[in-house]
């Protein structure tokens, strides 16, 4: 099992959009040992619980956010043999269909890449200090945390 020291980690909180191709290139440059890259993109859905979301504002806790994401990636690197991990999360105002978050996980093997990418997303959802405020036709409101996100963590205790 590789440790976090051997895994190339990139964490970024950004008001601007990310470029998936550019992030893939950064991760891959100069190496021919990667067999699999699993990526996840989270997007702003226009429809959420029956209301039409026109925009969303993402707030976070600078410092704790990066620390939390680094810890999550370090845990994943202990569980699976990872080669590189990139996590980019946007903050500020986002519109429907905009990108919110990008997670890229590279490994020699596909199962490790899939599992670690989903692990990072699951813990990002429950532990990383981001908060969403949605603007809908019914006004502005803070998004409630979902029980299903906490439930999703259960599977990682079984390994």
């Amino acid at each position, binding site marked *: 099992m590789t440790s976090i020291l051997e895994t190339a980690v990139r964490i970024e909180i950004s008001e601007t959009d990310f470029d998936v191709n550019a992030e893939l290139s950064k991760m891959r440059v100069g190496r021919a040992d990667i067999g699999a890259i699993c990526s996840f993109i*989270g997007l702003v859905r226009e429809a959420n619980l029956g209301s039409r979301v026109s925009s969303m504002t*993402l*707030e*976070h*806790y600078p*410092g*704790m956010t990066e*620390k*939390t994401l680094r810890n999550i990636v370090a845990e994943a690197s202990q569980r699976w043999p990872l080669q590189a991990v990139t996590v980019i*999360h946007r903050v500020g105002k986002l519109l429907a269909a905009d990108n*919110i*978050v990008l997670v890229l996980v590279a490994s020699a093997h596909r199962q490790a890449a899939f599992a670690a990418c989903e692990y990072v*997303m699951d813990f*990002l*959802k*429950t*532990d*990383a*200090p*981001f*908060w*969403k*405020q949605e603007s809908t036709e019914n006004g502005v409101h*803070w*998004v*409630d*945390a*979902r029980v299903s996100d906490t439930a999703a963590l259960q599977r990682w205790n079984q390994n």
Partner: protein
Amino acid sequence: MITILFFASLREALGVNREQFDCKLSSVTDVASLIEALRGRSAAFSEALAPTRNWRVAVNQEIANTNTPIASGDEVAFFPPVTGG
């Protein structure tokens, strides 16, 4: 002195995002005593930080609980359950 931060709906409900707080003046030694001191300020604070409300607390950017000790120089943050991703 400690730094207290409030985020998202808590920040809005309390109308403050950051303040400096003198632990010694209020005999604050842990999260529980800090909350007691803050709740005594106003109805808004009492309501927002009530034990029945679903807030989270972090001390020095790590998730904490009411038993977590607090000392001068610490950064304490209160916020609702997170909703990123």
